[in-house]
């Protein structure tokens, strides 16, 4: 395959990469995007929409979320352990980015919360007349069409391999591999890395984070996220920051369970650890980052949600207590079939037993301790939850066998962070000096959540990807002019 020449090469065509390409092309640069998969969109194909602050949707819905409020909330949440200048620039630009997307034909349903305690910053892409999964796929399509309209060349099934630097240490090219395995070089002045972290690379997760894929952490890894960009950046001299898992708790330890089974076990009932003790106010289970953090600090990094048949029956009859925009359907009528199917396959993460003691034995918890916890819990159900002050709406007694339990483990969509960047998304080396012509955006460069994903401002990871993509695109387009 013969070599190519352009001004800017964007490595990977997810939300970050495509946003960078479109922004750079709008600012007059020649751009080539190389994408490993055969469709663009990356993880965003499964997301529903980015974050936005100070948008017309929020004004219409009388939501008072300003850049100042969000910024301060964010800095408190991360106890100032992040780059405030980058956060400020990201939040300030996020409102205008929603309009930027609308100009290229993306429509939004409005601004939404993810769970009751979060802010309505999540701008879900309109899919038709109802909120549905894979909504952000439309945003990706609009980004691709806009990119091609602006003359951006998108090379699919082409993976990035190496960043080339000239003797002055400036980026001068990118080595890539096409779908027939042939290596070729793209000459360029600037390269933007946007490969979306290493969510599907167990070795790298073990090495960087020390978590064992499939034992400690169950990652609903998006195929293709292997950390190629991270390695390319580190190899080109970028500072190696800690790579972290974007926490989101996982039900069932990697076993494929039906939606109803997961939905019932995610409801805020009784949550215990391996010692049979309650571990949190289950009301906040909906924030899967908090739930994952809780699981991280328990024995074997495992916690169990327990329900009884009276709870299951009432959910089947009247739908579940708490729904979210990702699992909007309250109907869990096929819970029993789903559970039988799992148990018939000899599940190691789902349990059913006629008595609490039997359930405890199956899970490997001390039966007396669990029985005692359940009795205390049932007493709280009659009055007030003195242990964790859970809202009485979610106090349902566990009184009638058979009892069901499901194992929860820490999990995550993928990894975040690893490449040091400054507020212009320039990759920086060990002593904070930018590497001329090398930029990074999206998950690879996302060190802004410290150790826990900031779920109180939902849409944050896709918002970060799109906005840092734009920043990288602007800066790169400016850099290649001089």
């Amino acid at each position, binding site marked *: 395959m013969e070599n190519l020449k352009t001004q800017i090469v964007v490595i990977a065509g997810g939300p970050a990469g495509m946003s960078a390409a479109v922004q750079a092309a709008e600012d007059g640069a020649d751009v080539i995007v190389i994408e490993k998969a055969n469709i663009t969109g990356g993880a965003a194909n499964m997301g529903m929409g980015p974050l936005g602050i100070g948008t017309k949707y929020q004004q219409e819905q009388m939501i008072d979320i300003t850049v100042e409020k969000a910024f301060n909330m964010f800095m408190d949440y991360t106890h100032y352990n992040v780059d405030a200048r980058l956060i400020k620039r990201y939040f300030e630009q996020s409102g205008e980015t929603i309009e930027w997307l609308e100009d290229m034909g993306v429509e939004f349903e409005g601004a939404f919360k993810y769970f009751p305690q979060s802010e309505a910053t999540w701008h879900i892409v309109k899919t038709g007349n109802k909120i549905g999964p894979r909504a952000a796929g439309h945003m990706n399509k609009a980004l691709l069409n806009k990119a091609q309209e602006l003359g951006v060349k998108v090379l699919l099934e082409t993976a990035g391999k190496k960043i080339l630097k000239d003797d002055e240490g400036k980026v001068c090219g990118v080595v890539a591999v096409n779908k027939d395995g042939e290596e070729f070089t793209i000459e360029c002045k600037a390269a933007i890395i946007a490969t979306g972290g290493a969510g599907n690379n167990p070795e790298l997760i073990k090495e960087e984070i020390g978590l064992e894929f499939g034992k400690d952490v169950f990652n609903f890894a998006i195929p293709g996220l292997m950390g190629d960009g991270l390695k390319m950046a580190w190899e080109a001299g970028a500072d190696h920051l800690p790579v972290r898992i974007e926490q989101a708790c996982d039900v069932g330890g990697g076993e494929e369970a039906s939606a109803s089974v997961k939905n019932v076990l995610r409801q805020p009932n009784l949550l215990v650890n391996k010692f049979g003790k309650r571990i949190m106010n289950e009301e906040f289970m909906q924030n899967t980052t908090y739930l994952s953090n809780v699981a991280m600090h328990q024995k074997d990094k495992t916690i169990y949600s327990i329900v009884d048949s*009276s709870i299951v*029956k*009432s959910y089947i*009859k*009247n739908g579940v207590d708490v729904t979210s925009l990702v699992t909007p359907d309250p*109907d869990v009528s096929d819970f029993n079939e789903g559970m039988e199917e799992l148990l018939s396959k000899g599940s190691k993460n789902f349990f059913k037993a006629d008595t609490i003691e039997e359930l405890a034995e199956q899970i490997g918890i001390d039966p007396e301790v669990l029985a005692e916890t359940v009795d205390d819990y049932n007493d709280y159900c009659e009055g007030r939850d003195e242990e964790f002050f859970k809202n009485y709406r979610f106090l349902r007694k566990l*009184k*009638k066998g058979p009892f069901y339990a499901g194992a929860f483990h820490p999990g995550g969509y993928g990894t975040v962070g690893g490449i040091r960047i400054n507020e212009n998304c320039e990759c920086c080396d060990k002593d904070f000096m930018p590497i001329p012509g090398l930029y990074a955006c999206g998950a690879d460069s996302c060190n802004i959540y410290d150790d826990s994903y900031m779920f109180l401002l939902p849409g944050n990871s896709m918002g970060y990807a799109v906005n840092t993509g734009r920043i990288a695109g602007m800066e790169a387009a400016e850099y290649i002019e001089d």
Partner: protein
Amino acid sequence: MENLLVVSCVSDDVKAPLSMYILRNYKADVIAGVEKYAKEFGAEILYLLPEQEEVDGLNGEIRYTKMSSPTLNNPYAVAQVLSGNLPRPMIQDDYVAIYDEKAVSVITPEAAYGMTKGFDEKFVAINSGEKTEIKKTTVGQSVGEIASVDSAKAVLLGGLKGRFVTGPEASKIKIDETENFSSITIYNEEDCIVDACVQLMNAAYENSCGKCVLCREGTSQFKQIVTEMTTGKAKMSDVDLIKEVSELITIGAYCPFGQHMTRPLTTAMELFAEEFEEHIKKKSCKCGKCYKQAELYYIDPDECIGCGECIDACPEDAIEGKDGFIHIIDQDLCEQCGKCLAACEEGCIKTATKLPKLPKKKTKCGKW
């Protein structure tokens, strides 16, 4: 390439079993028609009969099938059935269906009969209640003349692809004038139209050959949604949903069956909008067919003496209460088996379709 003419006697409409009726009662005319048509392009003749049918004296090889599908007048579907597969039609410009190296074409007994006796005679099946009667009529005759429809609550003209009309309107319609249909199904006052639509949609789901997405998944969705209308799970927005989706299916489906299978439901919804609304909103059915009144059990708070007899009787242990306290039945667990009612000597367990105000918390007897 030799030609093969298949006489497909598996009627394509469950509501109008005409093919076998005509074959058996007018065999001579059918055979003559088939001969005439076969001679035109020198085709071998083969009869495709439903499994349990026995007809002798036919001028061609006989093959049996247990398949019944609305697609069995399409050559490719017939070829598939003859080679042991499920029928799947092929509507493709100049496509020739092949079965053991012969080009297949299809004729039905109705068409064969028409070849000999001309097309102004028309057979129509009249279904009312369980009875199906097949009558020979002439084109232009009005429905009212051949079936007593005036007092009918509703009439379905044409089976799974047909449309609902009111009795009086039906009686004026002339057969095969503006639209052709081969069955008239009469529904009277005590028939619940929503339940009728559930049966029709179940039949459509079974009859769908499964090749095209809109019909296969469409019938499956409609069947579930209409059934939910009779169990109180549907919402009013489902009515518009069905209308909108049917409109697109009628345009986008692959074959005539797929395009028209939504008509019975949409026309029924228009004609009997309030009956549908009653089913969805009030969750009740005046014909008593759906929502068999669910009897809910409760303990009368004024009469309960807190003796606890009912607790032991309940297999689902859905009853809570201590001595001297008013007992409460947990409606989520109660399976309406009625054992507690029998166990209570005070007779204070009663049933009703709507629950009166009941205590939520433990309260002593007499304190209510």
